């Protein structure tokens, strides 16, 4: 069974998913960051593949992506770094990135590589649903990869149903009409949206992301979904001067502490 499905079968609340950019802050930090996150009890990890024109991302992840690219990060390099990752890590791993580097790598080859190193799912924000269904779905499925779709406050009921139908891992609820890392805190408007989605009766579990940066925002998101995703706030923490293990453990503690 795919590790993502296993996770959601065994755990139904307060699932903590953390995003970071591969090759940041240093090229060879990818694997140590994953291992530290696992040590600190994170449930799921999203590994960002840096791209120079990340249209869904705010300044923090844009910045980490540029540093990673300057460090020499690439899709080839990432698969290289991850080749033995399953010897030490059991939790689900997802790759997140933009479509062009995947196309240039070759979609077939990319998905096969994912299976080889033990990737469980992909998040590609600029891959439209219709194109996925027509050209990519079969390849993803053969390689046991879940495609994770994003929904936003603007997503219509009709589209929600289509996305629920096309999803097999979980649904990524974007908390606002914005980019990653944009806003702190949660507005009433967001809670109305969270409420609408949680009552919609989706068959797939949901995680809330974008703008989750503290114990409080994490707890609020967990009231409306199975858990939440933290990206920019963690990437910001990775950018500080502390030793890696301290950066990670301090950060996870701040978020996951029950208030």
């Amino acid at each position, binding site marked *: 069974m795919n590790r993502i499905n296993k996770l959601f079968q065994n755990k139904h609340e307060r699932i903590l998913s953390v995003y970071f950019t591969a090759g940041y802050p240093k090229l060879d930090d990818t694997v140590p960051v994953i291992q530290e996150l696992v040590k600190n009890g994170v449930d799921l990890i999203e590994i960002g593949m840096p791209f120079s*024109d*990340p*249209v869904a991302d*705010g300044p923090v992840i844009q910045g980490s992506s540029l540093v990673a690219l300057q460090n020499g990060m690439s899709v080839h390099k990432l698969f290289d770094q991850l080749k033995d990752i399953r010897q030490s890590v059991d939790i689900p791993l997802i790759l997140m990135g933009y479509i062009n580097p995947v196309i240039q790598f070759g979609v077939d080859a990319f998905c096969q590589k994912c299976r080889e190193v033990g990737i469980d799912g992909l998040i590609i924000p600029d891959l439209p649903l219709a194109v996925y269904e027509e050209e990519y779905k079969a390849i993803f499925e053969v390689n046991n990869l879940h495609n994770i779709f994003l929904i936003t406050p603007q*997503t219509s009921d009709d589209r929600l149903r289509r996305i629920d139908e096309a999803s097999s891992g979980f649904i990524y609820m974007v908390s606002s*009409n*914005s980019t990653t890392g944009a806003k702190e805190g949660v507005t009433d408007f967001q809670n109305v949206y969270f409420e609408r989605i949680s009552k919609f009766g989706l068959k797939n579990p949901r995680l809330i992301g974008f703008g989750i940066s503290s114990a409080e925002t994490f707890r609020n998101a967990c009231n409306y979904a199975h858990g939440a995703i933290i990206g920019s706030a963690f990437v910001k923490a990775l950018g500080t001067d502390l030793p890696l293990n301290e950066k990670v453990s301090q950060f996870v503690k701040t978020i996951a502490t029950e208030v």
Partner: protein
Amino acid sequence: MPENYFKKYPSKEGYFNEYGGAFIPPVLESEMKKINDAYYAISKSHNFISELRSIRKHYQGRPTPVYYCNRLSDKYGARIYLKREDLNHTGAHKLNHCMGEALLAKFMGKKKLIAETGAGQHGVALATAAAYFGLECEIHMGEVDIIKEHPNVVRMQILGATVVPVSHGLKTLKEAVDSAFLAYLEDPINSIYCIGSVVGPHPFPMMVRDFQRVVGIEAKEQFFEMTGELPDSVVACVGGGSNAMGIFSAFLGDEECELYGIEPGGHSLDLGDHAATMTKGTPGIIHGFKCYLLQDEKGEPSPVYSVASGLDYPGVGPEHCMLKDLKKVNYDTISDKECIDAFYELSRLEGIIPALESAHAVAYALKLAQKEPQKSILINLSGRGDKDLDFVLEKYGLPENRKNW
């Protein structure tokens, strides 16, 4: 070309055969759908069309003339004509789509226009449109271009626009697009993104083309009235490709007209030295659409360079990509040196100082003229060169003082 070409291309999903589309995150997807729906509902309405026509006539000064170049034709052969978009208000063709986009924004109840600019022509045009309609305007511009195109920066500020400097990457057009997208996503309800060319996700390549078609429609009629026939060749420069789509669109069905899209060859055709996307690019996805793209083996857009800031972009309009594959348009390059030579030739032989972008088209037309002196050539002179004077003088000097290249 099929009779119903403009209804057939793009498809409902925004494709020009395999190019175009909308490769964008869901946040943008719902906004693009709203713009698309509004475009179909509003831009075909009687009120919209009559207001836009009145603006074109009384405010922009359209139709712009077609002009026969006496001395240039004498010297180089052929009969050379210019479609004078440099005489369009603000000095370039860009205002044609900016007034359309801003009018659409007004009908949609938006309060703020956001865009990127390279040479500053699109920024100036949009700032002008914003002033006309009483809307706020925010223009994102790379720091390199801000220095190079200083007069346009001042013009935007005088017109009341906010110019946001972009300091990441190469600090030119591509980075300005990233930055403008982000600013738009901050408040898509009250603002609208007004892209500067026939690029970006659907519906922009279609909308901008449709607003620019006026150039081709006028030029064809004017040329025929002057000569009793159609031009043998039509030449336009291609960065994103808006002025070229504008003029080509009227001639796509005329087998006897050869169409030429001219890309910036820069210093050389080595990677990083040029922005000749159609000539050297491979299919890829950038800024939400599929097109020929200058990119490295990792799928990262390559650094690009051109003497003309407005042509400095690693992607190109999806419709151009389709027209290239269909061999409907010939795409070729002109180097910086050829561009500067043509800049001075047109200035001194006709008293018309072209924008460096448009000078690429002029340079190619001069080559064509020498090859086929019996033919007629229509050049889309997409903009005037006032913005480039200081830069050209400082970097290249006057022809009589110029050292060997």
